Structures are given as structure tokens and as C-alpha cells.
């Protein structure tokens, strides 16, 4: 799914804050460094290639990746002023659902 620029910016901020809250500033930098080194993925490109991001954190943290994903989603909900609901949906699907809600809430013409 293609996100609009504003949403991408908010999502990057949420990923930043989510990673930082669990791994700290340097831990976050390490994740971005590895994403760039291993997949050629820049921080700004993550919203367009979320599957690479999730694949990488799952590869590193195993089950623990779920906590990072939930933290990112919670942060994103807070930024978008949307309610966080616990779901069994996959990370990418949840982000896409939030994008749809965001479009409905803010971009309705």
C-alpha cells in the first residue's frame, strides 16, 4: 500500500520512538545501520518497505519483535489520535488499517 507523505513522516517518527523506547538511542541507530548495510534500506524508505523492516526485526529478536511492533503501533496511534486496540493482525496489516482510518479521519474531502 502506498502511504501519503504526511503519514510516512508520522510513521517514521513512530518507528524512531518505538525502537528508542525499547533499545535506546544507540540500539535504534544499530537497527538502521544494519537495515542499510544488509538490505540497502534507508530510514526514510522504511514506510515503503515495511516487510523488510519486520522481516529484519523478527530475524533479530524472534518472538521479542512483537513487542517492538506493538510499541510502534501504540506510538503511531497516539500520534494519529486513534484508539489502540489489541488485535491479532500482522504488523503491516495493522499499519495499513491505521492508514485507512487516518485517511477517513483527516483527509476526507
Amino acid at each position, binding site marked *: 500500500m502506498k502511504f501519503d507523505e504526511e503519514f510516512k513522516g508520522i510513521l517514521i517518527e513512530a518507528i524512531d520512538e518505538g525502537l*528508542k*523506547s*525499547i*533499545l*535506546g*538511542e*544507540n*540500539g535504534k541507530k*544499530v*537497527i538502521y545501520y*544494519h537495515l542499510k548495510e544488509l538490505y540497502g534500506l534507508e530510514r526514510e524508505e522504511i514506510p515503503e518497505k515495511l516487510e523488510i523492516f519486520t522481516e529484519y526485526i*523478527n*530475524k*533479530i*529478536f*524472534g*518472538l*521479542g*519483535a*512483537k*513487542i517492538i511492533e*506493538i510499541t510502534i503501533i501504540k506510538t503511531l496511534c497516539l500520534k494519529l489520535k486513534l484508539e489502540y486496540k489489541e488485535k491479532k493482525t500482522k504488523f503491516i496489516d495493522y499499519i495499513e488499517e491505521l492508514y485507512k482510518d487516518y485517511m477517513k479521519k483527516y483527509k476526507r474531502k
Partner: protein
Amino acid sequence: MNAQYKYYEISLVLVIFLILIYVFQGFYYDFMYIFSNIFPPIISGIVFCFSILAFKKYWTKIKEYFSMIWLCFSIGLGFWFLGETTWAIYTLILGVELPFPSIADIFWLIGYIPIFISLFLYVKSFSKVLSNKTIYSTTIITIILLIIIFITLIIPVFEIEFSINTIISSAYPILDIILLHITILGFLIFYKGKIGKSWLFINLGFTSYVIADLLFNYFITYGTYYCGHPLELLFHFGDLSLILAFYIHMKEL
């Protein structure tokens, strides 16, 4: 990946070398006494250095969870390194053949507190992925293990001698098991990921410490422990496992 295998190879060679040194100690008793007292501060110093490297890598500020985790790890392992060094000073410089209990024990016991905090914080921040069933069953297994150890090894020791010596020597395996309990949970969280390997080695390390401290408790009470006792190998394997754990952690994350 190659560098990681190189570390495995070096560790394997070191394990074989250590086993051979302990097996053939009858041929060089004097050397063995020195080796048995000099090697522990060296290897625990290397563990401490690796924890400092990890601390340097992940440190940002005290308020951050991950920074705090590695700060506590380094402090705890620093105390354990001090414990080993103090023991070596007693035996090699002051000429005390078996400095137990001593100031070294104070350092070792204090070291458990920051190590507990670091492991607890690490596992706690990811623990929500574990089901209650997993947490309860791991806890029950740990409690059963503690009871078995109490009945079979600690109570018999107390029956022989109930003193500050036996209390201190019994404290080690109990504290090790508490740490092992947390590290098992950590392994269950991360085993599917690349840092799962790091947690596997942390588990192997603490398992070695549990067995080593239990045997130490037993042999010291029966007066059969001596510098160069083969049980020391387990302490060395534990240290080696922690070195590998920190190395892998830094490599993968």
C-alpha cells in the same frame, strides 16, 4: 559470519586446552596451583571487558532501558572480576591457601544484584510475548529444581556444618538458579531470532555456574576442594559462554 565461527573455534580450542591442563595436573602440581589462581581473574577480566564493549555500544543515557541493562551488566561483572582478583591476591600474594569466606565473597555476592537487575530489565521489556502458562511452568520448574537441590545437596551440607561458611557457599547456587530462571525466559523470547544464540550462551553460562557452585558448596564443606580442582573448569566454561554471548549480541545487534 566467518568471524563468528572463528570465535567458536578459538573457544573450542580453549575448552580442549583447559580440559587437558586439568586432566594432567598431576604432572605439574605447582604450576597448577598458580594457573588455578591466575586464570580466573584473566578470563573474568575478559568477560568484564566484553560487557564494557557492549555497554559502550548501547549506552546513551541512564534513563534508557537498554543503557541501564548494559550498565548493570558491566557493574555486576566488574564486581565478579574484583572477586576473582581478590581471591588471586589472597592465594598468590598473601599466601592464604583457601581464602573462603573472604572479601572476595563480598564482591561476588554484591555482583549478583546488578546482574539480576540487568537480566530482569531485559526480559521484562519483552516478557509480554510469553504466555502466562510459559512463565508459570518455567517458575514451577525452577522451584522444583530449587527444592531438589535443597534436599539433595544443601540440607546435607547444613547437617554437617551450619555456619557462615556453609550459608555463603549455599547462597551461590541459589542465586545462580534465580538468574538462570530469568535467562531461560529470555531464551524463550529470543530463541527464534539471531540474538537467541546470545541468550543460549547466557543460559549455558549460568547453567555451568549453577553446577560449579553446587559442587563447590559440596566439596568445600567436605574439605575436599583444592586450588586446581576440576570443578573449576565449569566456572571457566561459564565465563567463556558469557564472552561468546556478549560477542554474538554485539555482532547481531
